[in-house]
């Protein structure tokens, strides 16, 4: 094991850390602001990769795929947060309607296998499906309106399970839309070359990952430290009740942060898709790593997430290279120790 080994492994670790920062920092902010353990965060990462693939297949543009994926998944996160995690007022009506249509769709899927096509052609089929869905959705909707839903805002466990439920739904949806194959996202050829520094080959793409994460991290940090909105976010992280008391619209902040976190995870998915690939199961593979980042860095702390991401990236790379059989153990065991000694993470505030 010469210097080259250490340099290359460290470089790989840092670039992996850059990717983990993208998924972990959002998770950390979401936890800080909303106290929600979001188990569908890995799904955003995976879906980001898939959406980017679709964009690349249709337009051929890798550059375009990044903002489209990030914005699409940010919108998905926004809807999920507004309708299911923090529903208020009219959102509850919409939520019940969405659930009713969802169940009706499932019933339609089940019934459609038995029911013969009554109307001819694709359009006829579509009309038939729509009718069946409507027929089932309306009574379900009114039934749901009569049942008072649980206020899940106050129940940590129910929020967790809700996000798991969505993770399963996303998983199945991804399987239905994009199939079960492994895909790679091809970055433009300009990024596939290598830098040679002191006889060591450094893939340019990994340099790009580090730069991207650093830029995004810096922008976020500036926004958090220097803007009014950032100050409001920090206040919410520290004490949501107090923040509400002094007139900060924590509701809007949680919506914004959730969308931002989802978008950043999706961005990670696009960028990571070039060397991790995009495949079913990627979601639950990335999720625990994102949690490791959050836990080590401290929940709700951006700087902590950066350090946590670096630590996890390096630990993961060196672990796999030095003691492959214990690789994940050496990653999660320190996490346990940190949690046991300082539950708020290394840089989290009480």
């Amino acid at each position, binding site marked *: 094991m010469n210097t080259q080994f250490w340099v290359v492994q460290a470089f790989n670790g840092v670039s992996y850390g850059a990717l983990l920062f993208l998924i972990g920092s959002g998770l950390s902010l979401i*936890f800080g602001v909303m*106290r929600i*353990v979001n*188990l569908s965060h890995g799904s955003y990462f995976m879906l980001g990769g898939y959406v980017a693939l679709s964009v690349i297949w249709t337009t051929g543009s890798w550059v375009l795929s990044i903002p489209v994926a990030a914005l699409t998944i940010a919108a998905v996160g926004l809807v999920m947060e507004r309708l*299911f995690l923090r529903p208020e007022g009219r959102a509850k009506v919409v939520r019940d309607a969405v*659930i009713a249509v*969802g*169940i009706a769709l*499932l019933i339609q*899927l*089940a019934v459609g*296998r038995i029911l013969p096509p009554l109307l001819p052609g694709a359009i006829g089929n579509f009309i038939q499906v729509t009718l069946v869905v409507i027929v089932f959705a309306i009574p379900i909707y009114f039934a*749901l309106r009569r*049942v008072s*839903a*649980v206020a*899940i805002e106050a129940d*940590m*466990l*129910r929020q*967790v*399970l*809700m996000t*798991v*439920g*969505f993770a*399963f*739904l996303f*998983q*199945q949806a991804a*399987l*239905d839309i994009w199939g079960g194959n492994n895909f790679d996202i091809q970055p433009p050829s300009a990024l596939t070359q290598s830098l040679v520094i002191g006889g060591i080959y450094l893939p340019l793409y990994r340099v790009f990952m580090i730069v991207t994460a650093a830029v995004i991290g810096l922008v976020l940090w500036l926004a958090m430290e220097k803007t009014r909105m950032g100050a409001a976010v920090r206040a919410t992280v520290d004490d949501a009740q107090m923040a509400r008391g002094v007139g900060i619209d924590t509701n809007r902040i949680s919506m914004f942060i959730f969308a931002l976190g989802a978008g950043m995870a999706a961005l990670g998915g696009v960028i990571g898709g070039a060397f991790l690939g995009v495949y079913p199961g990627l979601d*639950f593979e990335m*999720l*625990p790593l994102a*949690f*490791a980042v959050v*836990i080590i860095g401290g929940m709700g702390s951006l700087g902590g997430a950066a350090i946590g991401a670096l630590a996890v990236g390096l630990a993961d790379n060196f672990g796999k290279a030095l003691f*492959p*059989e*214990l*690789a*994940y*153990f050496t*990653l*999660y*065991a320190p*996490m*346990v*120790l940190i*949690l*046991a000694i300082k*539950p*708020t993470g290394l840089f989290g505030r009480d």
Partner: protein
Amino acid sequence: MSKQTIKIAAVVLCLVALAVIVPRGNSFVVLLVTRALAFAILAMSLDILLGFTGLASLGQAAYFGVAAYLTAILANRYGFGLHWDFWLMVPLGMLTGAALAAIFGLFAIRATGTYFLMITLALGQCVWGLAYRWNSMTGGDNGITMKGGRPQFGLDLTNDVTFFYLVFAFFAATLAALYVLVRSPFGKSLLGIRERELRMKILGYNVWLHKYVAFIIAGAFGGLSGVLWAHTNGIITPETVVLTTSVDALLMVVLGGAGTLVGAAIGSAIVFGLREFGSTLVPWWQYVLGAVYVLTILYLPMGLMGVPERLRQWRATQKKRTTKNLASVPS
């Protein structure tokens, strides 16, 4: 007869019906119910934590998985646990689960709420990491196939129906044991901790120790579940200890109704039924599972076991509303 006696009688009746009806079904049904029962033991062990102590653990699969791996490794390498020594394997699995919980508990019990969730998640991931990467011991991603088949010792457990009866017996025994536990003074203090931890502390209860003991007991039954699971499945993979297994167990408890024990078993039956039946019928069964998650969380505050109570409340409010309406009508 008191209400409690009626409830117990109802549960016993259901169990007897299960034992009579299931063996008449085809082999698919027998195996399905066997799996659900073996996993229900894990779900009930989690209910001790979640429903009776108020600790939401995201790492219950750890004890389950470690015991399952232990069973498979001992059976494959040393042929242990495949004959009469199966009866040693069972307590050994429980002891392993308990010992692991005793270690994990030292780290986890101090934490509360979300932090407890996180630390149990991390602990579960430690076990998963070992299962996934420690190739020489666990077979890595491929897992371990039980080469020796199921134990034979007078009883031929390779017969699915006989094996069903064995798992059923363990399930019933676990249900009874845990029921006695939660009705005991110890169980009552656990409930007290769930409701008002601070008050229990002030009353002089050693809250930490109570939680710790509950954690260990849950680990022991998780271990029992793992031993049975190894023989039910015949193959143990990292899937056994993956995060989603722990989450599934949580869902089962919440779906059936936390703090009812029986609810956990019902939840297990439903989730397994959906998964195994669903996956043979349609490719999109996971939508159903996701929908069950969302619906349970939003509309079943006390789980399925709480539905009669909710209906009663609903009817009471309906009645109140109609009488009010009648009263407001001028005569």
